């Protein structure tokens, strides 16, 4: 295995490659049913969404409460294009990406110069308006009647004289989701290490200093928001072609909150942390769904637990379970220093 240079990679990477290998062979392990694959696909989908949302609070320090609006726009765009025009999934992905980005720019440009709280509220209002629009404009979206019978994803090589292969069952979607997650992670990594990413972190750390280095605050923030929205839309497109049924009440505020929980739990700004946050919360959600009736507890305990987790995380570990240095420092910086500063002279450990 010398080609992969396994010996040379840092420890963290080896673990990740191991997990990826596990994920690839998962469907062939014994006892793995379609149900487990269904949950796994859900996890992967939320990973994409969480990675997308991560850009705004994680890299830019702004609270986006309206993320589900982009998710819904992406899903309905994909669903409607498929329903009416039968477009191929592979054409829809870039379209959804662009559509999401456009909406991100439309919403972000006027609002990103606001302070954090106002921005949060405006995004919240936006997502509620999106849901209202989806519900009421029946002529366009069929509203509460829902959009059933969306085609499944297919690889259509008939133009080249090849076969047409439709995605039946969970297995093909599972691998598709893995590919999409890998692409998203790759893109996120590249952005993080690029000028764009560094500009974002600079803005997050200190806006005034960033401006004085020549960074155009608004432009960078809008780009961040647009990319975040684009990934949300892509996630939505996958969702539409996977469940093949859409209805407006799938896109309520609760989804935004859930995805926010994932990045808060995992570690804002940390790509792997966010993915683990998604994994933990979706699995926890399903596990609780099974256990709670057995323990005789009502299902609301699941939601209550999430609220409580958020409060506790903010209190004790606001940067998440796997924080990145920049965010951790920032979260700590504001805290009242209760310890007396020891008068040390000279010798550092």
């Amino acid at each position: 295995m010398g080609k992969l240079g396994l010996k040379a990679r840092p420890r963290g990477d080896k673990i990740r490659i191991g997990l990826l290998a596990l994920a690839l062979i998962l469907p062939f392990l014994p006892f793995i049913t379609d149900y487990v694959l269904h949950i796994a696909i859900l996890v992967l989908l939320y990973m994409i969404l969480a990675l997308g949302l991560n850009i705004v609070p994680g890299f830019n320090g702004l609270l986006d409460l309206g993320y589900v609006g982009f998710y819904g726009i992406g899903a309905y765009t994909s669903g409607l294009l498929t329903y009416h025009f039968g477009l191929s999934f592979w054409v829809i992905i870039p379209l959804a990406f662009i559509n999401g980005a456009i909406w991100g720019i439309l919403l972000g440009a006027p609002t990103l110069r606001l302070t954090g709280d106002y921005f949060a509220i405006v995004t919240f209002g936006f997502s509620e308006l999106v849901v209202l629009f989806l519900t009421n404009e029946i002529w366009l979206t069929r509203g509460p009647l829902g959009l059933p019978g969306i085609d499944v994803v297919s690889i259509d090589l008939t133009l080249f004289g090849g076969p047409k292969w439709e995605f039946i069952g969970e297995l093909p979607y599972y691998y598709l989701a893995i590919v999409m997650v890998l692409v998203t992670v790759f893109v996120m990594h590249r952005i993080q290490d690029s000028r764009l990413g560094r500009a974002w972190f600079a803005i997050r750390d200190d806006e005034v200093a960033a401006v004085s280095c020549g960074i155009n605050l608004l432009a960078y923030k809008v780009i961040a928001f647009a990319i975040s929205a684009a990934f949300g839309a892509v996630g939505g497109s996958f969702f539409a072609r996977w469940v093949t049924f859409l209805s407006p009440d799938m896109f309520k505020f609760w989804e935004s909150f859930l995805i926010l929980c994932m990045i808060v739990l995992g570690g804002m700004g940390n790509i792997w942390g966010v993915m683990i946050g998604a994994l933990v919360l979706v699995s926890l959600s399903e596990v609780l769904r099974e256990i709670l009736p057995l323990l005789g507890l009502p299902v609301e305990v699941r939601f209550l637990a999430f609220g409580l987790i958020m409060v506790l995380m903010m209190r004790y570990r606001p940067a998440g379970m796997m924080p990145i240095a920049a965010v951790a420092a920032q979260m700590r910086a504001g805290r009242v220093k209760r310890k007396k500063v020891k008068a040390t002279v000279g010798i550092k450990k």
Partner: protein
Amino acid sequence: MRNKRTFLFVGLVLGLALIFGMTTGAMAANIRIGVAAPFTGNLAAYGDNIKAGTSLKLKEINDAGGINGQKVELVWGDDLCQPKDAGTVGSKFAADKSIVAVIGHLCSSATLAAMPIYVRAGLPAISPTSTNPTIGDVGKGWFFRNCYTDDFQGKYLASYVVPKLLGKNKVAIFYENNDYAIGLKDSFMAGARSAGVNVTGAEAYMTGTTDFTPQLTKLLRDKPEAIFLCGYHPEGALIAGQGRKLGFTGPLFGADGIDNEDYIKIGGKAAENTYCTVPFLAASASPAGKAFAKQYKKAYGRDVDWMSANAYDCLGILAQVIGKVGADRKKIRDGLAAINSEATGYKGVTGLTFFDKKGDCSKPAFVKMVKDGKFVAAK
């Protein structure tokens, strides 16, 4: 290191998840039937009705020795009446090969979300309460229901209840913005046109609205003689109360969504003089139906409702079919499809049930009204 702790935690959660995924393929000694409905959340009351009806029939079957010697077991799937959760519940049922049929779902939107999964897995589903007319198309032969569709209810209200029973001609519609009510409103308006009933206005509202005074004020301006409460009972009760406060004295009417004790509880005095169509009415039922109503009251201490009755019959139909063809998904579907005429129909507490090619059935509707604080049969 922090990472170690996280990995341990993640490993634990993953492990638990896998265990739960694995154990859903439990013992196949019993005949397992899935039941999908909202058992928690704000429509939990409906789910309770389904549970009550099916449990009553289950006890009956198992006390008599089961089906061909095998006991029956019900597996509950809580779909919260949400399409996303319905998909998860559906895929769980479909993946569990020991589940041979599904009774559900309750809400039409949940059924619509789950049906593609059942079709793909070849799992027959029979719903006691989903009334959306389009489900039959999505079901592709794997879906059956023993309740009437919204098409039928709407037309019945327009052509019989309003002009003949109530003797009114000018109606204002207040409809909820969801799949159930929109379908109902559309079929009502179509029926109203041919029955010569005049619809003076139609206002929509979102689920969860509590203040209807602006819309009511607008509707009442045209002086309707009756108001159609086209939606579910929580909002219906509020509309009744606020409408009366604004001075409306005519009759109110609705469909099966209004049929619930809570309507009277929340509406109070304003609920008087409300009519609603229901698929099952104990007072007008056959002797078998009346006996069932008594049994239900004894077991649960409350009056039987149409959902419980339909759910009871659903399990009865499945039991009869399984008894004939055995516990095999495809055979059960074929057995259900064979119930397609009056001769082969199932005689249950809700009357005679048989399915057409889309899995729909035609059942008569009955009319209830609220009088002196209780639901009684309307004459």
